[in-house]
């Protein structure tokens, strides 16, 4: 049977991809079913990109455990998988006695959880750490950091793929049925004019094991597996992105003192030198609406300016939003990560519910944990050919002059700058177009290279990239997509092109 796999993972986000990579260490046939056209369109690519220290979670929780574990191994992972990670530290800034009490509590909790190096700092030291911040004291977490969430997710997925995992994009799961020896999973293409199960584009997969790593849709997939009753709410957060010239004013993320349920609006440096501001937290039921309203942008700027008064409208380059899937009890209280196998309802199905923050930090240990749960029940021989090392696209901008010279000498395409703002060369664009996962959207190029992410937002390079996509992949103009199904960029030609068929 063509579409038979030992293990099918539903969802190709950071956790689904980490699970896939961990399972690829064994001799099993694995597929990932992803409804979007790339791996980080939803929660994995829409967040603060902070590698958390693990102090904000209840003692004994999975969140605390995996966060601390993931944090500790992030340097090694970044080296192995070649993604941008910076252990820059982070401060939680306070002003009042109440803030101090809360910070002390947080610190004790953090120490119990295993967060390393936490300490309280006075105003003078705070200003040595982050000169441009406003506050009387802070808790400093030296082990916290930031990473590039796109690179991280893409790296996990590519490494899984290189080790034999098959990714299916535009495959939204529409039904799961139990059958002898496993599951039958039906998919349909995502997008407008959705096909009913069994309609055009519908496909059937069979497998022995299922992993629900569906993120925002964890509740829906859980229900399809027969595990009912999980209440999953969306917490939508909006962000502003500031120009790189603000980067030097923020060497590490600056947070307010957290409440029990919400980290607060913070300012975060990014691995590429920008600053992000956000998020607010709004409960939503529409898990596909990513619009950012004006009043939220104003609120973010106003609120974060109390911590870091350098937010100027002229430095805005973009805004975005993300939604966290939060599993809540009947009283609305946010629960821990749920990672379970319910033998009585769905044997050989690992059900992951409420994979919200700190999911990015925790992804690799979660992947290992899920692989462990499966292996406890079924043993697989080790995959001796497994290679944990994945090399990313060399970034011209991050190279020093000697390295740049060497890059151009080896491949003249590195001498052709396509994206001026982020200094992305043709060589990088071409490598991104030929990515191992087979992603062909414009935003796929963007998240892999940073082209179009700069201050001109593609004003200079987008048309060049669109043309390269057309040439390399033999696409017609009307087939070039921005990010999702139906997000076509162009309507065709102005004049019929003589002798050009692929237009």
């Amino acid at each position, binding site marked *: 049977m063509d579409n038979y796999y030992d293990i099918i993972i539903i969802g190709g986000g950071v956790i689904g991809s980490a699970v896939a990579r961990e399972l690829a260490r064994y001799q099993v046939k694995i597929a990932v079913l992803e409804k979007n056209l790339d791996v980080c369109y939803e929660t994995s690519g829409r967040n603060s990109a902070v590698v958390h220290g693990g102090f904000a979670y209840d003692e004994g929780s999975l969140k605390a455990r995996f966060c601390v574990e993931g944090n500790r191994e992030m340097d090694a992972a970044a080296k192995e998988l070649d993604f941008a990670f910076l252990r820059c530290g982070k401060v939680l800034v306070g002003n009042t006695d109440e803030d101090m009490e809360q910070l002390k509590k947080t610190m004790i909790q953090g120490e119990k959880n295993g967060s390393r190096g936490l300490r309280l700092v006075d105003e003078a030291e705070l200003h040595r750490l982050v000169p441009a911040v406003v506050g009387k004291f802070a808790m400093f977490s030296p082990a916290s950091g930031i990473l590039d969430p796109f690179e991280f997710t893409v790296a996990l997925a590519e490494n899984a793929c290189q080790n034999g995992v098959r990714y299916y994009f535009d495959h939204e799961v529409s039904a799961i049925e139990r059958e002898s020896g496993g599951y039958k999973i039906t998919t349909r293409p995502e*997008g*407008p004019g959705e096909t009913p199960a069994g309609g055009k584009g519908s496909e059937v997969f069979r497998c022995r094991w299922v992993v629900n790593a569906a993120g925002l849709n964890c509740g829906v997939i859980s229900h399809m597996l027969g595990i009912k009753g999980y209440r999953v709410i969306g917490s939508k957060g909006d962000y*502003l*992105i500031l120009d790189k*010239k603000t980067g030097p004013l923020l060497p590490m993320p600056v947070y307010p003192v957290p409440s029990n349920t919400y980290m607060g609006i913070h300012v975060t440096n990014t691995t590429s030198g920008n600053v992000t501001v956000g998020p607010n937290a709004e409960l939503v039921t529409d898990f596909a*609406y*990513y*619009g*950012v*309203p*004006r009043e939220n*942008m104003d609120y973010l700027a106003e609120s974060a300016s109390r911590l870091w008064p350098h937010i100027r*409208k*002229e430095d*805005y*380059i*973009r*805004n*975005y939003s993300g939604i966290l899937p939060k599993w809540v009890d009947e009283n609305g209280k946010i629960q821990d990560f749920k990672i379970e196998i319910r033998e009585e309802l769905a044997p050989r199905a690992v059900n992951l519910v409420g994979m919200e923050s700190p999911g990015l930090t925790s992804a690799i240990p979660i992947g290992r944990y899920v692989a462990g749960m499966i292996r406890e029940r079924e043993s697989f021989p080790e995959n001796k050919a497994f290679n944990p090392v994945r090399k990313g696209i060399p970034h011209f901008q991050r190279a020093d*002059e000697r390295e*740049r*010279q060497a890059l*151009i*000498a080896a491949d*003249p*395409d590195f*001498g*052709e*700058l396509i994206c*001026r703002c982020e*200094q992305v060369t043709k060589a990088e664009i071409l490598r991104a177009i030929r990515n191992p996962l087979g992603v062909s959207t414009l935003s796929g190029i963007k998240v892999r290279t940073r082209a179009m992410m700069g*201050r*001109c*937002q*593609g*004003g*200079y390079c*987008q*048309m060049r990239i669109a043309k390269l996509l057309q040439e390399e992949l033999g696409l017609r*103009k009307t087939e070039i997509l*921005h*990010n*999702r*199904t*139906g*997000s*076509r*960029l*162009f*309507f*065709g*030609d*102005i*004049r*019929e*092109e*003589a*002798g*050009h068929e692929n*237009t």
Partner: protein
Amino acid sequence: MKTLDVAIVGGGAAGLAAALTLWDRGVRDILIIEREHSLGGILRQCIHEGFGLIRFGENLSGPEYARRFIEEIEKRVIPYCCDTAVTDISPQKVLTLVSRREGLVKIQTKAVILTMGCRERTRGQLAIPGERPAGVFTAGVAQAYMNLYNTKLGNDVVILGSGDVGLIMARRLTLEGSRVKGVYEILPHPSGLPRNIAQCLDDYGIPLYLSHTVTEIVGDRRINGVKISAVDKDLQAISGTERFVSCDTLILSVGLIPENELSAGAGVILDEKTKGALVDGANQTNVPGIFAAGNARYVHDLVDNVSLDGEKTALAAAAWLKGTLSASLIPANPDSASSETPRFFPKPGARLIRCILCPNGCDLEVVAQGEQILSVTGNRCPKGVEYAESEIRHPMRTFASSVSVEGGELPLVSVRLSAPVPRDRIFDVMEEIKKIRLKAPVRIGDIACKNVLGLESDVVVTKTLK
């Protein structure tokens, strides 16, 4: 390390003019550095007319205007390199160049003229609320897609902002069969030239809504509409005025900013107001020997003035090399504040017509009843009255477009009409232009279609294409 007397960063209108002036003053150790494949800068994609009225007394298209300078550059064999990016300029005036051919090269220069031009303000910068679908383009990007990349952007178009590029694109899109549903301007007056309001919007019945803005972008894949609101005098949306306008394309023409990333790296102080390099009366920045000209200094309305600015800067740079220009800062350039051409708006009931018969470009205020002209004011010579009469009785227009080219390095070449045609025949002429097929190479000045539809006007190629 290689050395150079003067590096000119950018081969657009300002850079080309600066290079010619330097050369003619005897400064020969110079180099124009251009990131694109050919010289000309943004003029390459500005296929419409309206350039050169002051400088040449002619109404030229962008490529033709650029060609006049490029020919002079080539005649003198002034050195230039294309496909080359400047990635850094140090305060010591060392330039880092990156190209396929040469790799990474460093050049120690004595003087630098910054002529990088400007870029467009984006949606993110304006913080326009809503979703982020495909189909939102800045006007200059839309222009490049249409005029250089032969790309149709959409059918139903909304334009936000009444900057000149947006107005030009309103006409261009309409001529190519898209429906422009309206131009929305947040200010109580248009920001583009009155002449462009007249010939790009009024001629085609495209409505201009002043004191209106886009308050939300709707669509999670391709844009399917925008919410529009009226704004009060503080530019805040007035509640209750919001309405939905469906569209598949949104074009933003909301301002230009001088391109100054390289300047900042060199330690050049920027002007908070113009966002361009802060310069003295000689266009010298705070870094001795680094000069700025054209749109990198501040955004000019007319390309003719950009060329002038390049020339003026070149004279200063030449003097600086000789040691006859003081390196100390003198007060900031007074003309940057008064750079805007005066805006002229007609009194109620009158029509504004900009006479294009001579470089004066007089704004005529014409009061007419039917075909009967009651009064013409604002003309500086009698020709203005004639022009007003023809405009009222049988308006004539020229316009620019593109024709298909087989086997060329680009699929399209820009064309314009050699003489005006009756305004009501524009779309008939467009149909003829769409049928034209040329074979590469084509040269500037080639006739693509003689005496189109017997209207005594030729379709003339305005760009050389190999």
